[in-house]
């Protein structure tokens, strides 16, 4: 593609691509993010391409390979435009029929989504309950672009917000719009983005200011950023270009975790394409704006999501946080003024400029504006990424969009905010989701992980799990974090193995507060949250473990035994599944478990179709 030398070159290309896209040809969209590919999207793509070539369909339709659309549970899926027909869990053998129907403007009735409540087939994606109740301003863009083709992004209107502000030349206005939008950082802390930008714009500390995109999505159970980086990398670059224009920053850093190979690949491609087109580099579109980005891969350290640790890591050092002040906006990477925004925050920037700050601010609550993407996972029927307006209740997300619990159990709690967050019990599900409401309930918004838990999730085990994570991830700089998380984990381990006394709970609470008060960075200060919130809402489970040496959820191995009840018909499934050969019994005779051999691996219970395996 030819390098764009002026802003009017850009509009010429933009208009030409927009005009081309008006063609009435049907588009078959196959989402192929990490989830899609793991579920078999690659095979669908190959079948589709082969069919298109063999049957000369290439003039009659378009094929678009995109990132994740969010309904990961139903992958691999196919979406057909403009009819918006949605086909979940598509088998390769059914792909040709979908293609022919798309070409003819028809739908394949029997492959459509079935609403489990009404039992009816739903034709359009937007009428599927999972999608209907969302407000998808960021995620819907993933449907429109093939992430490795900049032409596709431009065709969908990409980089137009940037070109407009560049043309206006009005830097303060961009910051005003950002402030008016009320956007708060989507990484978890919720700092107002417009204000942060204003501080950087005013920073007088020489030249070479930095903008950083924090893509070190380390919270286990959260993958919103991965979906945006994989599915729409140019939207991040556009957000950063707007930021560079508004703040005068000249250097950009994309910090992406090592565990996201596809995101890294797509970003590298996007950066190369943007450079080739003249959207990154010196004298962008013939103006005086110069801005370029480099990609830095994280090397697997949770603490590097903390901004001062991230900056150390960008500089190639051990990622240990440091004391603030000085804040990054005063002294950041290479000592230069730096701001760090989360992936989702950057992705919101083009949306805000397109709609206008005031219009954007109409969504959400007074103190939390806009939409937020959550990764709704765990013991939930419809797992996937959901984008909802701020202020929606947990119940609407978990039961309305998520479709309620997976299997027969009842939902007990949701965990938000990752290892820094907390658990919110089912009785508080009418709580509205916003930054301040979640804090009041003892959790945090965090980056957007929302993990549903049912009666078979042990809350003490969960607290122990998070503490195990944190003790491994503590960088070790503050003594109270290093030893405090270690000691809290030991106390929790004692409880889950039946070695604890009630004094353990007092000690845990005391220690939790000490760690909270005496550590330097966010990791340590929030490390006790999983303990404190489970103690606040599920103290009875702790007591049950300690006093009666029982795990009510049937999870803690040292406190449970497996047995086979009278429902057993002797089908022998469990016997075949048992890796320890602990199950005996003949065909059509009730089986029994030898407790001396049982390794409590749960294989028998997971294969039994009759609920005949009991855990106590």
């Amino acid at each position, binding site marked *: 593609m030819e390098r764009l030398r002026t802003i009017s070159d850009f509009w010429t290309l933009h208009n030409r691509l927009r005009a081309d896209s008006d063609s009435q040809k049907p588009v078959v969209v196959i989402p192929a993010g990490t989830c899609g590919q793991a*579920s078999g999207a690659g095979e669908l793509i190959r079948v589709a*391409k082969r069919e298109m070539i063999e049957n000369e369909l290439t003039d009659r339709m378009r094929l678009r390979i995109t990132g994740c659309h969010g309904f990961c549970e139903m992958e691999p899926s196919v979406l057909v435009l403009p009819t918006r027909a949605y086909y979940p869990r598509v088998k390769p053998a059914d792909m040709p029929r979908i293609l022919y129907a798309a070409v003819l403007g028809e739908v394949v009735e029997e492959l459509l989504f079935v609403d489990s409540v009404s039992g009816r087939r739903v034709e359009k994606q937007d009428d599927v309950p999972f999608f209907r109740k969302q407000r998808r301003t960021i995620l819907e863009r993933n449907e429109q672009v093939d992430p490795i083709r900049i032409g596709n992004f431009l065709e969908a209107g990409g980089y137009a917000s940037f070109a407009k502000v560049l043309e206006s030349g009005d830097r303060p206005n961009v910051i005003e719009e950002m402030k008016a939008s009320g956007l708060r950082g989507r990484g978890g802390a919720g700092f107002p983005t417009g204000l942060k930008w204003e501080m950087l714009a005013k920073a007088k500390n020489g030249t070479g200011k930095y903008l950083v995109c924090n893509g070190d999505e380390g919270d286990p159970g959260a993958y919103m950023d991965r979906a945006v980086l994989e599915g729409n990398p140019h939207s991040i670059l556009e957000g950063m270009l707007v930021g560079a224009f508004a703040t005068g920053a000249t250097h950009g850093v994309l910090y992406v975790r090592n565990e996201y190979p596809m995101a890294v690949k797509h970003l590298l491609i996007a950066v190369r394409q943007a450079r080739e087109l003249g959207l990154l580099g010196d004298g962008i579109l013939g103006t005086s704006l110069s801005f370029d980005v480099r990609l830095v891969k*994280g090397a697997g350290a949770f603490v590097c999501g903390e901004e001062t640790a991230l900056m150390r890591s960008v500089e190639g050092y051990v990622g240990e946080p440091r004391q603030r002040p000085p804040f990054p906006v005063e002294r950041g990477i290479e000592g230069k003024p730096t701001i760090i925004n989360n992936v989702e925050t950057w992705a919101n920037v083009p949306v805000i400029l397109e709609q206008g700050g005031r219009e954007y601010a109409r969504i959400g609550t007074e103190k939390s504006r806009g939409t937020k993407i959550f990764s709704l996972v765990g013991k939930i029927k419809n797992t996937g990424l959901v984008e909802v307006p701020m202020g929606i209740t947990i119940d609407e997300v978990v039961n309305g969009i998520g479709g309620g619990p997976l299997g027969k159990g009842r939902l007990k709690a949701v965990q938000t905010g990752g290892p820094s967050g907390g658990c919110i019990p089912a009785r508080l599900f009418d709580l509205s989701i916003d930054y301040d409401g979640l804090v009041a309930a003892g959790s945090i918004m965090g980056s957007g992980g929302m993990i549903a838990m049912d009666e078979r999730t042990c809350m003490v085990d969960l607290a122990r799990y998070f503490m195990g994570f944190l003790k491994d991830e503590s960088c070790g700089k503050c003594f109270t974090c290093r030893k405090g998380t270690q000691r809290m984990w030991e106390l929790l381990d004692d409880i889950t193995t039946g070695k604890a006394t009630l004094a353990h709970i007092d000690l845990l609470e005391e220690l939790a507060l000490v760690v909270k008060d005496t550590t330097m960075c966010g990791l340590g200060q929030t490390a006790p949250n999983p303990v404190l919130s489970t103690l606040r809402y599920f103290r009875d489970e702790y007591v049950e473990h300690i006093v009666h040496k029982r795990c009510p959820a049937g999870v803690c191995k040292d406190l449970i035994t497996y047995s086979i009840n009278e429902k057993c018909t002797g089908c022998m499934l469990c016997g075949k599944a048992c890796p320890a050969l602990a199950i005996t019994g003949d065909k059509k005779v009730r089986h029994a478990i030898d407790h001396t051999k049982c390794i409590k691996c749960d294989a028998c219970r997971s294969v039994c179709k009759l609920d005949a395996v009991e855990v106590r």
Partner: protein
Amino acid sequence: MSTDGIHSILEKHAGDRFALISILEDIQTKYSYLPAEALRTVADKTGKSLADVYSVATFYHAFSLKPRGKHVASVCLGTACHVRGARMVAAEVERRLGIRPGETSKDRQVTLETVNCLGACALGPVVVVDGHYYPKMDTQKVAKIVAKMQDDTASMSSEGPTIPLKVSCPRCNHSFMNHDHPLDGLPSIHVTVSFGEHHGWLRLSSLYGSFALEMEHPIPMDAVVQFFCPHCHGELVGANDCPECGAPMIAMIVRGGGVVQICGRRGCKSHMLDLDAANL
């Protein structure tokens, strides 16, 4: 161990004083771990103390100081996987392989790792082997995957090349298909190539996704090659550069509609099959 590879990595990052992590990442990609000698060379050439290099190498989980096996299995222990039974999956993998996380089997066949979250939470519990994701794992599926890893002849990837293409010159429209010298059991694609002082023929597999090829003059790895039509002698130039390595892409017309582009750099596996002329 030869340190040539390390020197070329250091050269690539010369002048960037913040590149230590990238240097170690590149070394690990090349050798699958960080050999002690490599760390000494890095310290020596970057002017950092060995203690500094060692501290970075041991702080980040991505680095390994021990050689890793032929296959690397990563069991995800993220929260979503955890509540769906990842610990049982991990225990079963450990039991079957007879090694603990972070260890490599004695026959160097498998390295077992646990990760805190792979970001594939909807598919949990997840196990990744050599970059291939296995979704919704349970203790029974573990047996199959472990057996596959221990079998030297099995390929971990289930994906194979599947689309046979017939291609022609974008200029003169002459077919490139050669029926006399099949590759992968199909007519091969015959073109002429030139690189350095050499000029000669090259035959490629016509199976999209297969990298089988035959050539008149051996092309060294990483060399960038120009492709020509053997009929009109026009150069086959793609619309843009390789998204992965930046070398010019080679374009050929696909019969049935569309364009196939392959990277002109030997060893770069980037290729695209574009069935939509409007795409850039």
